[in-house]
């Protein structure tokens, strides 16, 4: 069906981007900072996507930028999903006072605007990309804990979990051998959708100048081109490549996410009862 084709194309796009990021030194041996041409050169055979305002090759910046952008997206999503899954499983499984305390704590933390808190914290620390991504993962996990918890609750009450407990399986065994595999589909969906959010957020943050502008990623490339007048001067090759790259990968991740969601949670998107 057409859904299947969309999913395959999306996975292919994602694969291509990851391959490009991994193979960056092969694709652009001069590196992203080397000045290899005249400033603002239009695309030609030497510079596939032209050059920026100081004569750095845009293609080289794009492939190296992919590393940072993808790293940011996947790292923070991974951390967020790991934290929310493990905390969700633990509080959902034990319930009682632990559950109560964590839930109340989440209630209190929820109204804190994470986005601005993130900005304040990074302003104070001026950390690197990796630290910011870990921080975002940490802050982003709060919301997911609740979702995982309710999913765990629906599994933990089922008979096979009771059965496993009855035959004397350890808590750890029940949580990770019986409950985890059952919430895994949701974890997968969450990972993909969170990666997409985090990736877009990361590009956005660097677009507004959140971290060191000397690190080349797609956000800073767009920021440079936009504030440098790329739009007003009509220098399309300066601003379009990083933007199209973000749109491409974000779309691919979003479509993969929705396909997964439909597969694992048939209530979303299909049948009318």
């Amino acid at each position, binding site marked *: 069906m057409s859904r299947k084709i969309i999913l395959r194309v999306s996975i292919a796009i994602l694969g291509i981007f990851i391959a490009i990021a991994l193979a960056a030194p092969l694709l652009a041996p001069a590196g992203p900072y080397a000045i290899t041409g005249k400033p603002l050169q239009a695309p030609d055979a030497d510079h596939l996507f032209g050059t920026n305002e100081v004569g750095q090759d845009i293609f080289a910046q794009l492939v190296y930028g992919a590393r940072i952008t993808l790293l940011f997206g996947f790292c923070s999503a991974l951390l967020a999903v790991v934290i929310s899954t493990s905390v969700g499983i633990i509080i959902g499984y034990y319930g009682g006072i632990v559950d109560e305390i964590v839930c109340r704590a989440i209630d209190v933390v929820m109204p804190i605007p994470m986005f601005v808190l993130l900005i304040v914290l990074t302003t*104070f620390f001026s950390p690197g990309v990796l630290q910011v991504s870990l921080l975002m993962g940490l802050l982003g996990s709060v919301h997911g804990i609740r979702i995982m918890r309710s999913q765990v609750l629906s599994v933990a009450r089922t008979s096979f979990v009771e059965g496993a407990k009855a035959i004397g399986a350890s808590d750890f065994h029940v949580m990770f051998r019986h409950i985890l595999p059952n919430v895994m589909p949701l974890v997968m969906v969450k990972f993909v959708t969170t990666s997409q959010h985090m990736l877009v957020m990361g590009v956005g943050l660097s677009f507004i100048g959140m971290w060191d502008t000397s690190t080349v990623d797609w956000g800073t490339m767009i920021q440079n081109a936009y504030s440098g007048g790329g739009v007003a001067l009509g220098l399309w090759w300066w601003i379009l490549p990083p933007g199209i790259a973000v749109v491409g990968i974000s779309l691919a991740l979003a479509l993969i996410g929705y396909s997964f969601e439909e597969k694992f949670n048939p209530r979303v998107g299909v049948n*009318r009862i």
Partner: protein
Amino acid sequence: MISGKYLLQRLCYSGASFIVCLTITFFLLHLMPGDYISNYLLSLSNTLPKEIVDQFREQFGLNLPLTQQYVLYLGNILHGQWGYSYAYGQPVLSMIFGKLCWSLVLLVPATILGILIGTVIGAWSGWKSGGKKDFAVFNVMIVIRAIPEFWWAIMAVMIFAFYLQWFPLGGYASISVLSTGLDFFDVLHHALLPIILMTFFIATGNYYVMRNSMIAVIGEDYITTARAKGLDERTILWRHALKNALLPMVTITTFQCAGIIMGNIFIETVFSWPGIGYLTTQALTNRDLPLLEGIFLLDSLITIGAMLVADILSSAIDPRIRMGTDE
């Protein structure tokens, strides 16, 4: 409809939330290595004499015990004394309010339109879920949503402002305001494109929530009961399904609204619109911590306020919350 006791309870809860926010900010900023006055002074120059630094610390009360500092800080915030911007030297609170007004020029129309459009299309799409039209609308929404806001904004500026020249490239008014004063139509001309974009974005966000919520509602038994009564589909949708589907919407949407103030940051940056978002980027570039802290507090206030509104609204719609019974 709503009991005073419930309202009071929610108000107390909101107040407590704000104090928690304040406390967290305070301790985050004060328990970090170094204090921010010293850090700021050091960032200006490495060779500042120790006496000057100490003098500043004393002026800002940084030599006091932490608990006393905390009480002072709390008192100042509650009295509207939010500190002074490093970069502009103006009181943070008045700066924020000046910019907030401009943000609201974009936000108020965009939010109202966006919620209306998103809810109606979402309800319709959820009701028709599984059909061809729903499939088409749903996919269009995925695509719109997946493209980052700032990229939509840049593309819009490129196409409508640069190539077609229907709209100005950015800013809130033409240069001529310096001599003639603000003109409503001039501001509208500048605001239209960002408003349209934001409406677009708010609508797609709402669309998802509403659609999912509607799909959950159509599976419910009371919809079957309504059909068995002989109601036509349209009446079932508007009289029975919509109100139930709106319940989860209210909380999520108000929450989203609170986030919009900050989400606005991208659109304001691209359009150089002098609102809170733009102020944030400026503060970020200048590493203007008191200003950022003020923005953070404002945002906490808005979010907490939005949650209060959400609670009141959902209790107005849902008798189960109103009566205090949980089911």
